[in-house]
């Protein structure tokens, strides 16, 4: 059964879109990532114009994150105070990101910058997570786990404006989550994703939050950052295809429920190593496309009248 998308201006198979939404929704519930870094390339792959894929995906992540956060809230896995501070940074960052996006578009190399961003950030984060979680798994197998400190202390913990985050069992400077939120906000606007795949490891390794709270809190703040991106895209580029987003989110909302139910059955390090493998996979695919000789060295793109 086919459906004509009014903004993307193309006909798609409804069941293909539902299946894509379901699959990515499951992963999003499982790992606490919005799934944008998988869905946006996938949409482009099936022929959706890149700007529409980016704008629509932001809209769909809003829905799957709301759905995911409800499941986590029921288990008390959301640190609202931490989420709020991250969010404040996120708003500033994503708005800055949109400005940066327009500047790069003016230079004519936005596609390349987006792809390089994907390769660099997915590569670094996937690699770090893989090494760390593999080590944890190996260690827990050889020696019986010894109870150590909750997290390591370093210079970051010497910053001023200390705040107590009870749910995360942390007493750290508010500047830290503000900076993390802003940094991820810039990248999420630039790469057209929610930014969970950067946010989750940043919360674990930079802020030292317990894994159980990380996923719910990340989803909570992603809702607002992607809502901001959706609004900005709708106003500036008119590339938010609501019918496409609805089709995707029907699949994603259902998938996310199963995903978050399944996530409690897995250990933190198991979740992280799975996510790491996926992140590295997407990174390798994009890197490969940049390196391999394209079938046609020429490509065409319609120009919007200036």
């Amino acid at each position, binding site marked *: 059964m*086919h*459906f*004509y998308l*009014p*903004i993307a*201006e*193309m*006909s798609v198979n409804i069941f293909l879109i539902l299946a894509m939404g379901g699959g990515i929704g499951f992963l999003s519930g499982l790992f606490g990532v919005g799934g944008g870094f998988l869905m946006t390339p996938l949409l482009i792959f099936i022929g959706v114009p890149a700007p529409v894929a980016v704008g629509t995906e932001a*809209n*769909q992540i*809003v*829905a*799957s*994150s*709301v*759905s*995911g*956060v*409800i*499941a986590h809230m*029921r288990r008390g896995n959301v640190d609202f105070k931490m989420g709020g501070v991250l969010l404040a940074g996120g708003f500033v960052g994503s708005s800055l990101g949109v400005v940066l996006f327009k500047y790069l578009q003016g230079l*004519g*190399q936005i*596609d*390349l910058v987006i792809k390089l961003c994907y390769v660099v950030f997915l590569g670094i984060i996937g690699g770090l997570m893989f090494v760390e979680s593999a080590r944890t798994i190996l260690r827990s197998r050889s020696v019986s786990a010894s109870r150590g400190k909750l997290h390591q202390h370093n210079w970051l913990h010497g910053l001023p404006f200390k705040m107590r985050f009870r749910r995360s069992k942390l007493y750290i400077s508010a500047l830290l989550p503000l900076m993390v939120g802003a940094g991820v906000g810039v990248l999420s606007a630039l790469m057209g994703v929610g930014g969970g795949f950067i946010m989750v490891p940043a919360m674990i390794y930079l802020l030292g939050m317990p894994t159980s709270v990380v996923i719910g809190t990340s989803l909570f703040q992603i*809702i607002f950052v992607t*809502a901001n991106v*959706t*609004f*900005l*895209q*709708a*106003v500036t580029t*008119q590339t*938010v295809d*609501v*019918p496409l*987003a*609805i089709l995707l*989110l*029907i699949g994603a*909302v*259902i998938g*996310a*429920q199963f995903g978050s139910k399944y996530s409690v059955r897995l250990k933190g390090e198991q979740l992280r190593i799975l996510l790491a493998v996926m992140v590295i996979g997407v990174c390798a695919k994009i890197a490969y496309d*940049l*390196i*391999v*000789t*394209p079938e*046609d*060295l*020429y*490509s*065409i*793109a*319609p*120009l919007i*009248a200036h």
Partner: protein
Amino acid sequence: MKRNPATFLLLIAALVAVASASARGQALVADLSSHHVAITTGFTGTDVLLFGAVDGEGDVVVVITGPPESVAVRNKQRIAGIWVNADTVEFQGIPNFYAVASNRPLKEITSPDIRETQQIGAEHIATKLAAEDRDRPAAEIALYREALIRNKQNSGLFSVEPEQISIISDRLFRTQIHFPSNMATGSYSAVVYLFRDGEAVQAVSTPILVEKVGVGAEIYNFAHQQSALYGLAAIVIAVFSGWLGGVIFRKV
């Protein structure tokens, strides 16, 4: 050849048309089964029947042209190991859609010169360069031009080979024109040529309007005319659906 009642009626209409046409001394009449293509939510492309009649012998060629657009053709080069869009040529007034149909191979009907001037065949589409690209070497531009036509053909918007026109008893002709689902909206034109001994003796043009209708059109207009409200609506719909999903699954 598929025969259905609608086709039969159209052929009768064509016959009536040709009778009155020859009375006025016209050698060629043509019309379409529809002058309006409506893009609805279930749209997956459509076929339009073009039919007509000729007075006496001759070859019939049909050219369908979509609304003009500006197209950037980009060339990738390997820089520091990765493929980068290194160079761009901008073409203006390129039809979004181009299809051609004829009763026998084009090169048997008329000379390359005439095909060139009448823009018959995808390789003869007139291209206009943007001001900044006009000083570039012709050989280089030719590569970009070929790339433009090749890419358009790959996306199904330019025809590769002419469609078949069937002529019945040297008088009535008909052909099916296929419009793909990725076609642009706007004004299209169908030009029908009558060739005799390699010369175009007559041409008639008929318009086709392609537009979005129904819910799809309303969403498109909403998004473009009240984009702030549209953005807010998109967020509200997303939050509500996400919440609904969460609530439904609570009971499972």
